[in-house]
Structure formats: structure tokens, C-alpha cells
């Protein structure tokens, strides 16, 4: 039956996540993290994992909910809205990668751990984002090389490392690895440079395995979902402010120019929602255009987030520009979502290639 809007169940999951996040990760905690020196928040991590986020898209036999990328993306959207901290998106991706592999042993070893959130995992693909540009070498089961822009590396125990030629390896934190924190612009998702020097690892997918491209596409969809949630947050915050804030004796939301700006912001975000769904749906259904839809969604929606984050600051005036108000957190997240996994220009160029133009 044709159905292209969220099910009751999907909406219920989003509600549950929204509630759990609000309870376990209040605004003060977010500010604390941003002003502090870590982005890993144990209470909210535990609460989200307890709700089943880690296993949402994992098969039921491994303690998962057996849902699809679409459901996971809708979950990540909620986290983008709430500026959830740390490598949650990456953690879920690592689980997805292991679940997609052929090794029952690795699945048994890691999936329950990842589903429960007891082990924190992340993805080390940074710098040259596209699989064909990855550089870390794997030889005789050991990794050597360097990866930049690894989110959550300070908290993670398990790393999904992109290897030269487009393979994937799994590496537990060990002596052969060095994690050096980068000074991150997005304080809610900090990155590190990770150096591998004869670090023991398991090869999960060989270069050229089509699953790697699938996983990369999934990552694009999830980051688009995060951007969508973040963009929606910027719109909601601005609309709420415009209704409440008075000037010249009336809510500023009555002034036509601001109204139209807010309408323009909503016009960037709301139609993008179905685009995100479509990219996730295409991935789940393995449609021929799944890769292209993922690239387009990442490019378009990351751009929308950057655009509405800027517009939100303008719509707020002075207060939006303050650190204290917190809009800056989403502004900086928009810069993260735009750059992480490759800029819109990179993915638009890929989309043009994929269209055979």
C-alpha cells in the first residue's frame, strides 16, 4: 500500500526519543558540555541506548529492533533537533556495518555490546571523505596511517576505519593508536586525529566490496537527517521568539518582513523532510538511485541547515548572537554537518556523475 508519511510507530519512536533526550540532556547540561572539554555525555548516552537507539536498525536476534535506515534516520533527526552530543550517529553506523558483514563471530562479539551502548564505537573516515580516497593501510591485520576529523574518538573503544582503496576495518582502542583531540568548532561533536601505527585490526570489508559504498550512503543519509533536525530547531526557535518578543508594542512576529523571512526559513526545511525520507527509503529498498538520492540529500539539506542557522541568528537580533542563548550551538553544528563526509559541492559533483551527465 502506498504510504509516504510516517507511521504511528515512527512518530512514537520520535516522541519517545524527544522525551528521553529532554529528560536526560537538559539545556543546562548541553551548555555545560559545550563550555567544558568533552562532548561525551554519559547520562544521555545511557538513556538513549536504554531506549534502544543503538539497536534500532539491528536485527532482532542481536538485540535490535529490526527496523530500517529510515527509522534510524528519523531518530537521528530528533537528536539533531536536540543537539545530542557525541558520536551517536557514528556508533549506529558501526553497528550497521558489523551487521552487514559476513562474520557471525564479530556480530556475536559486538552487536549486543553496541545495541546496549556498553561499548562506544565511532567511524574514522575523515579528511579525504570518499571511500576511494581513504588512505590508511592494512597489512597482515595491522593498520598504519592517519585519519583526521574522527568524532567521539575520546570516548570510543571501537573504531570503524576506512582503509586504502575503500575497505573497512574494525579496530579496538589499543597501544598502536594515538588519539589527539582537535580544537573543534562544534563543541557538541568534537573531533580528533587518530594515528595508527601497527594497530591490530580486523578487516571487515575488502576494498571494492559494494557494502562499503552502501554504508557510506547510509552515513550521508544520517548526516542529512541530523541536519534536518538541526534546521528545524533553528526555525522553531526563531518562530517561538518572534511570537514572544515584543517591539513597538507588538510581537515582532507581526512585522511582515520578519514573517516572510521566517516563512522562507520554513520553506527551506519542511519540503526537505520528505527528501530525507526518500533518500532513506531508497536505501532501504535498494533502489537504483539510492546512492544519488543520498548524495543529493546530504548536499541539499546540509546547505539548508547552514542557511537557516544564519537566518535564525538574523531573525533573533542581538540575543541570537550570544553564546549564552545557545543558538550558536546549532550554528556550529550546521558547519559540522556541511563539512563532515564532504561538502555539498563534493556530493553534487558525485550526483552529476551518478546521473551519467
Amino acid at each position: 500500500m502506498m504510504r509516504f508519511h510516517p507511521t504511528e510507530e515512527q512518530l512514537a519512536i520520535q516522541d519517545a526519543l524527544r522525551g528521553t533526550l529532554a529528560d536526560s540532556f537538559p539545556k543546562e547540561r548541553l551548555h555545560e558540555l559545550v563550555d567544558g572539554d568533552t562532548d561525551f555525555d554519559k547520562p544521555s548516552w545511557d538513556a538513549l541506548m536504554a531506549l534502544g537507539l543503538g539497536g534500532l536498525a539491528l536485527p532482532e536476534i542481536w538485540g535490535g529492533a529490526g527496523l530500517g535506515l529510515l527509522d534510524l534516520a528519523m531518530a537521528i533527526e530528533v537528536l539533531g533537533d536536540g543537539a545530542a552530543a557525541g558520536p551517536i550517529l557514528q556508533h549506529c553506523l558501526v553497528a550497521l556495518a558489523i551487521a552487514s558483514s559476513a562474520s557471525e563471530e564479530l556480530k556475536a562479539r559486538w552487536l549486543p555490546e553496541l545495541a546496549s551502548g556498553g561499548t562506544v564505537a565511532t567511524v574514522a573516515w575523515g579528511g579525504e571523505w570518499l571511500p576511494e580516497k581513504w588512505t590508511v593501510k592494512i597489512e597482515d591485520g595491522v593498520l598504519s596511517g592517519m585519519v583526521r576529523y574522527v568524532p567521539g574518538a575520546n570516548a570510543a573503544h571501537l573504531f570503524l576505519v576506512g582503509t586504502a582503496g575503500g575497505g573497512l576495518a574494525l579496530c579496538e582502542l589499543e597501544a598502536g593508536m594515538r588519539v589527539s583531540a582537535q580544537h573543534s568548532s562544534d563543541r557538541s561533536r568534537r573531533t580528533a586525529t587518530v594515528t595508527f601505527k601497527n594497530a591490530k585490526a580486523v578487516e571487515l570489508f575488502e576494498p571494492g566490496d559494494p557494502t562499503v559504498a552502501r554504508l557510506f550512503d547510509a552515513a550521508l543519509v544520517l548526516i542529512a537527517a541530523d541536519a534536518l533536525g538541526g534546521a528545524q530547531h533553528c526555525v522553531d526557535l526563531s518562530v517561538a521568539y518572534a511570537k514572544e518578543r515584543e517591539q513597538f508594542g507588538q510581537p515582532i512576529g507581526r512585522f511582515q518582513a520578519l514573517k516572510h523571512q521566517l516563512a522562507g526559513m520554513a520553506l527551506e526545511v519542511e519540503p526537505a523532510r520528505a527528501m530525507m525520507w526518500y533518500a532513506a527509503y531508497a536505501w532501504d529498498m535498494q533502489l537504483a538511485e539510492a546512492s544519488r538520492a543520498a548524495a543529493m540529500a546530504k548536499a541539499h539539506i546540509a546547505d539548508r541547515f547552514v542557511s537557516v542557522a544564519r537566518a535564525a541568528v538574523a531573525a533573533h537580533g542581538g540575543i541570537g548572537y550570544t553564546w549564552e542563548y545557545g543558538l550558536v550551538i546549532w550554528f556550529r553544528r550546521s558547519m559540522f554537518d556541511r563539512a563532515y563526509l564532504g561538502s555539498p559541492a563534493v556530493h553534487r559533483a558525485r550526483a552529476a556523475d551518478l546521473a551519467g551527465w
Partner: protein
Amino acid sequence: MDLSYGAEAENYRSEVRAFVKREWQPGERRGSDLGAYIKNFRHRATNEGLLYRFVPKRYGGSEQPVDVVRAQVIREEFSRARAPMEVGGNGMAMLVPTLLERGTEAQRERFIRPTVEGDYVWGQGYSEPGTGSDLASVRTKGELIDGEWVINGQKIWTSQGGGANYMFALIRTEPQAKKHDGISYLLIDLDQPGVTRRPIRQMTGDAGFYEFFFDNAKTPADWIVGERGEGWKVSRTTLKHERASIGSAASLGAQFEKLVELAREVERDGRPAIQDPEIRQLLTRIEGWVMAHRCSSYRLFSLAAAQEEPGIVQLMMKLLLTETGHEIALAAQELIGDEALLEPPPSGHGKRGPSKWLDQIMGSLGNSIAGGTTNIHRGIIAERGLGLPRDLAMGGE
């Protein structure tokens, strides 16, 4: 989510396809011969329950239950076979739903069937010189004299005005009443001495709209829909019946595909423009909006099929369409280069070569005007969609 229509719909598709294959065989027919064949085909399709689904049988419709998926399947199959759908235009889109909702039984019997048959072609008589977005400020006057409405004034921006023989119009009949309460919704026969029509030539050079002058034009006393002074409300009547259509996104998609074609045809720095990295960025940047629009039309279609509320995104589709149309127009202007200096011969169909884009470049502006200006749409999104307070200046009542 699921973008397939499901087994029930696919079974239905087979039936529709079989019907169309069997019944739509125009062969070499031309002219009035073809016209009669089409009319007859529409009768058969209506009897089959495929056309005029929201119109009761007694007025010439097929009176089918609401089913947007079936309606979509029908559109797809007819379109596939290039078989004629319902007669288009304001009559089916606006007048018939209004009569079904607010008309008297006598009006329905009198007007719906000939509209369905395509014999009555309706112009919309809302705008006047001077009304603009403030439609309720109409001044065309109607006075009930000796059992007839006597109408004086002017209507403008009537699409299909060239072929229209009837008009539904907002007429000020209660000059003493408040602005919105002084208007009645009248039906007018346009083929009478008191009515003069004049084409309005557009930027593109074509006549897309008409204006009508009423000089003691007459219409029977009972050709009023709703009560006197209720015309404003009557004109707001809208029918949600199977309105959602994935096809609404198709026009934008088709425009974009043509842009891509253009980029293949023209050269830039000695190679096809589509191979230019800058053009590829430009195209995919626009395509992001096209995809968002298309996917949102799936969403609206799905909501309509489930009979759920469409929400804010419905308010955005028109604006998204026109704004993306602007982007396409600007990209086309970039691509056609010197051909922008040329105009295709005004042959109407079959305009060829890059300069045919001239119509799109200017037409994209017409789109924003035809469906209400973009500022009106933004206001609607802000107020109805985001719940922002109503503009002081607009808040006449």
C-alpha cells in the same frame, strides 16, 4: 514507507489499462470527428467510473468514493495512452465543486452537466483592475432590477477567457454592507450584448488572459450561488476531493529535465555545457529543490490517501514551484547565452532551439503572479503554517 501503490491498486491499474486500450482508439480521426469521438470516449470512461468521480451521476458524473490512489492510477494510465482526461479549466476545478457544496438543486441541474460535457466553458471573474491581492475590494456592481441582475464594471486576469462562454464572478450587490459582506457570487452568460472581452497580451507576446467589460450586462435573479452578500464565503469553498496528485510535481520535474537537455545541447568553452563543473553544480543545486518538491508531493499524496491533514507543507508547494521555476529560468538564461537576443517565431507549438527558453524565462514570472504573488504565499505560510500573528495592515476585518 512505501512508494508502490499496492496489489489492489495494481489490479485496478490492469482494469483501467484494459479499458483504455479497448476504448481509446482515435485512429486517424481529425477535427470535429475527433471531437465527437473524444466526447463519446469520456462518456464511456465516466460510465466505467474513471472520470468525473466526484460528480454525482445525476449531473453526469460517475459518483465514486474518494480514492486518491485510484485517481492517480487513472491519471497515469490515461496519460500513458495519451487518452483524454476530464475537460479542464475553471468550470471543473472551481465552479462545479462550489455548486455541489453551495448551489441550489436547480443550479446544479442547469449548469453541471453542460460543464462536464465541455459545452459550458467558465471564466473566473474575481480580479478587477485595482484589486490585486485584495480580492474583497471588488467594485463591479450588480443591481437587481425587474427580476434581473444588471451588471456594470470590469473583470480582469481571466484565464481561458478567449473560449469562455460563462463566468462565475464576485459582484458587489450590497454597496452599503461592509467590504466582505457586500459581495455576491453570480453566474453570467458571456455571450450577450452587454459583455465585451479583450485579450491581454503578456510579456511573452502571447495572450494568456482576458479582460471583460460589463455594460448593463444581465443575468437572471436566481443565478446567484449562496445568499446575497455571501459571495466572499462562497468563493472560498474548496473541494478536497482527490485533489492531491503526484502529477503536480511532474511539471517542475519536466521543466528541470528540459534544462538538463538544454545543458546537453549548448556548448560552453568548447564542450557540452553539461560537462562544465560549474554548470553541473548549478544543475544539481536546482535539482535539490526539485527533489524536495517531488518528495513532498509523494508525502501529500500519501496523506490524502490516508485522509489525514496535509499540514504546512501543502501551503508551500506553489511557492516552491514558482521559486524553483525562477532558478530554472535564470539557469536557462545563463545557458542559452547569445540566444537570449532572439525570440522564436510566434508559432506557438513546436518552438525550437535554445531561444524557446525565452518563454520560460519570462513565464516563470507569470507563474508567480497567476497563483497570487509570492508575498501572499509567504504570508499564508507565516500565518496559517507557523501561527504568526496577522498583519496589522492586512487585518481589515
